[in-house]
């Protein structure tokens, strides 16, 4: 279990996702949800740790937390 208090409204499971990749899965979800929604991205891809924060900053959303669950990461993003 992840050690965080953040409650996600939506979860995107991108574990094992090779193409189009976890970030693309996340963007697809962010496009669909309303402002203020917290989306949790599950990914096993090391690159996502850098890719996601970079995009979140570029697109002006909010990165809440990145939790290392051992086998995968939970990345929490709030749409603003």
């Amino acid at each position, binding site marked *: 279990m992840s050690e965080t208090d953040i409650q996600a409204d939506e979860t995107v499971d*991108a*574990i*094992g*996702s*090779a*193409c*189009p*990749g976890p*970030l*693309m*899965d996340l*963007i*697809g979800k962010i*496009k669909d949800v309303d402002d203020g929604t917290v989306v949790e991205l599950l990914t*096993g891809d090391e*690159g996502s740790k850098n*890719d996601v924060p*970079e*995009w979140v900053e*570029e*697109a*002006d959303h909010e990165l809440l937390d990145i939790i290392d669950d051992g086998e995968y990461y939970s990345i929490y993003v709030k749409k603003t």
Partner: protein
Amino acid sequence: MTERIVIVGGGSGGTITANRLSEELESEIEAGKIEITVVSANPNHLYKPLYLYIPLGEAELEDTRRPLVDLVDHRVTLVYKRVTEIDTDGKSLAMDDGSELDYDYLVVGTGAIPQPEETPGLGEDEPGHHFYGPDASENLRETLANFDEGHLVLSVIGTPHVCPAAPVEFPMIVEEWFRERGVREDIEITYTYPIQRLHGVRPTAEWMVPRFEERDIETKTFFNVENVEDGTIETLEGKELDFDLMIGIPEFTASPIIEEAGLGEEWMEVDRNTLESEHAEDVWGIGDVTNLPTSKAGSVAHYASGTLVSRIASEVRDQVPTATFHGKTICFIEAGTEEGTFIEFAYDREPVVRDENRFLHWSKLGYNEAYWLTARGVM
């Protein structure tokens, strides 16, 4: 008693599965134990990759389609109707003509439907073009034939987009095509992608960088198209880009019957190794309609059908199914009009992109001709 296997969809996934199943279950069909039915809204089978060549005048619409009856094994019953409802409790399908069809085993292969209208300004009678359908690709052919100066922008919008290679190939092919027509000097080409590199698949992105540079194709990343107006694209990130000709890789969606049947919220949710529905018994998914964490490509439907056929045959024979799918995907990538390469990957295995050459280009051309053998289950 005869058990009925029903396959919904006569596209790549449905057709290959039907043909391989009828081969695998030959003796059961002969003995009257099993009956296979394909229900398809489209009586023609489409080879969609050719849509990419229509705008360049290198393929005609008639090359993209063949009657389903020419490709599906004669032991399979063909029903030319649209499924409007799937009742997984009652194990029955409702059709657009009001009739019903019961099943014992169900395979869903309804594909991914392009949604250009999801992006304001993209689609028919709009400033933004695409090539994901017969009319759209023919419209683009006319526009391209008359385009000899200005700024062409190709924007990847959809996530995920059907076929990972098409947006990579198109700028390189059209660039060479403009050169052959002697108008390249008066045309600027820009490629845009939603994330910070040129492609979701990292090695593909790395392969693209020097090649796009060499060909003087401009690139923009972190570029999520929000709307297309006359002459300008606006993005989610607040950027703007002017264009004279805009081609978008649209968003895609699954048929609404999937969500209505409780088979998945966005795409049909299946186990990534067994292809069984996460939500219903005796239901499997094949091809673009599924949420498999790999590309939406014909090769995925092709390779997954092997696993599917083996598992369904085991169920029919009361054996324990053991075959599993591991995400094998192969896509050709044309690097212009004379050379090509390919990527091959699987779940948790990134591809290696080889340098392009003439033989791989010919392999792709050859495959475009001989694809029908894949649909037939021969190759």
